């Protein structure tokens, strides 16, 4: 019986852990957690404690590699439909002092219940509960569609928070006007108030939170140490983009695009236009970019400073080597796990991949010692 158990263990280990030796770097992959319901985002409280969002509405904790059975209490009710649900989890830069956690999610309006919005709340993590929850952003206007929320967040070095807000699918043209949050990156202070140096603060008719516009469905956001903001967004059928984003600039959607509509129709015959920014990389056909990290760890020195982009289609991770603000090389990696929803850099320097779907896994990529 013991030998059978040992055999099962070894077979399990083989199935769950794979060693890869490439010309460049040797790494192994291992399934750390499985059975997550549509995992979407990961935040690292410490090397041994992670928070993971499940799009169906739970915030889960992983301690020492074990998924805790009880989800974090106090998370607001979310609209789990279509592409919506509980999305990003992000720690405040001073989390160790204030224990503040930020969550983005889609939620139905309390009055017009057939309509919904992207909402961002913050709460204080006390034990296994979120307390003192405060809404710091709600997208305007409401939408009827359950798609294209964006919902990624990152803190800038000055302590302000960038939030990506997608175009809502049906409302793509609104990405070009400043009186709404469709297809925008917005910037707020950590309490939701408006920073005094936002680019459209004094523009008549413009919402003061808007930081950049002309985006589609932005699901990747990182900020480099020098302050450069990288964002990726889903294109339609083709035309996914990786952009360097600057305040006040227009990224063109849907007036310019490298993609066509899912129906095969032309959205715009134009791919460039004065006053509209070009991506530093685009993909035709689409890879469905769904999450991104900038690798800063020491475990893989060769990867330092590279972007890793999770791709849902066909299901892999794109490693983008940068030269300043230029993308100079792309490598397809980790294409054996299916659709990858997110990729994150763990404090120990390993990469954590979150697979998409109702039986989502967290997969650790670490160096072979």
């Amino acid at each position: 019986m013991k030998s059978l158990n040992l055999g099962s263990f070894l077979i399990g280990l083989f199935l769950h852990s794979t060693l890869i030796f490439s010309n460049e770097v040797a790494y192994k992959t291992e399934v750390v957690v499985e059975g997550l319901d549509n995992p979407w985002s990961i935040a690292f409280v410490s090397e041994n404690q992670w928070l993971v969002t499940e799009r169906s509405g739970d915030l889960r904790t992983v301690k020492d590699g074990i998924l805790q059975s009880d989800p974090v209490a106090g998370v607001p009710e979310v609209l789990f439909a279509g592409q919506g649900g509980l999305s990003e989890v992000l720690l405040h830069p001073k989390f160790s002092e204030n224990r503040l956690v930020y969550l983005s999610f889609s939620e139905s309006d309390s009055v017009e219940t057939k309509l919904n919005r992207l909402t961002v709340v913050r709460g204080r993590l006390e034990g296994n509960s979120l307390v003192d929850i405060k809404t710091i952003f709600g997208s305007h206007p409401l939408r009827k569609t359950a798609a294209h929320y964006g919902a990624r967040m990152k803190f800038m070095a000055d302590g302000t928070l960038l939030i990506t807000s997608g175009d809502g699918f049906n409302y793509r043209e609104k990405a070009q006007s400043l009186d709404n949050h469709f297809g925008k990156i917005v910037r707020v202070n950590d309490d939701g108030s408006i920073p005094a140096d936002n680019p459209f603060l004094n523009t008549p008719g413009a919402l003061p939170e808007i930081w950049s516009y002309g985006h589609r469905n932005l699901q990747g956001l990182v900020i480099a140490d020098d302050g450069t903001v990288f964002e990726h967004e889903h294109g339609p059928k083709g035309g996914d983009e990786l952009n360097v984003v600057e305040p006040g600039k227009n990224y063109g959607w849907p007036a310019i695009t490298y993609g066509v509509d899912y129906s095969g129709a032309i959205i715009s015959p134009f791919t460039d236009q004065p006053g509209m920014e070009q991506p530093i990389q685009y993909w035709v056909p689409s890879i469905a970019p769904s999450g991104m990290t900038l690798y800063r760890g020491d475990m893989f020195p060769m990867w330092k400073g590279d972007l890793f982009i999770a791709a849902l289609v066909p299901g892999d991770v794109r490693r983008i080597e940068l030269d300043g603000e230029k993308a100079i090389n792309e490598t397809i990696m980790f294409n054996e796990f299916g659709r990858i929803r997110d990729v994150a850099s763990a404090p120990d320097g390993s990469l954590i991949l979150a697979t998409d779907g109702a039986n989502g896994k967290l997969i650790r990529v670490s160096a072979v010692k």
Partner: protein
Amino acid sequence: MLRTTVVFLMATLIAMFFVAAQTSLSNLWWLSSVDMPITGSIIISMLLRDLIGMSVAGAFPIIAVVVAGLAIAFFVAHILLKIISIERKIIYALAGGAALFAIVVLMPLAFYNLDLIAGARTLLGKGILITGGMIAGYYFGAKSKKVVANEKS
């Protein structure tokens, strides 16, 4: 049978023309409103590309949806013609309109309210496409072979 098939395909093309043209023109209208340089050649090119693209190049083939919608609607109209007395062109026109209504109004309900045909995102757009379906149905009713002796023509 051959005549019915040819007339059905023509009716499908009429409906597809409305779907593609409404999508092209609504996109072009908006692009023009934000000062994108729309020219006559761009309009013609986009109309033609959308007619072809929406028929064969989409992630899902709109033309297959239209064919299926019209086929079901015309079959129901064919049955109804046997049991009620109504002008053939009228019932097929209503059937064509119902088919497009299902495609532009009911189908999005199954996709989280996403209007997958861009030209159908507004009420006006939906109305135009339903009208296109009615015209396609009217054409089918007028040109296809009568199958019941006591039908009104």
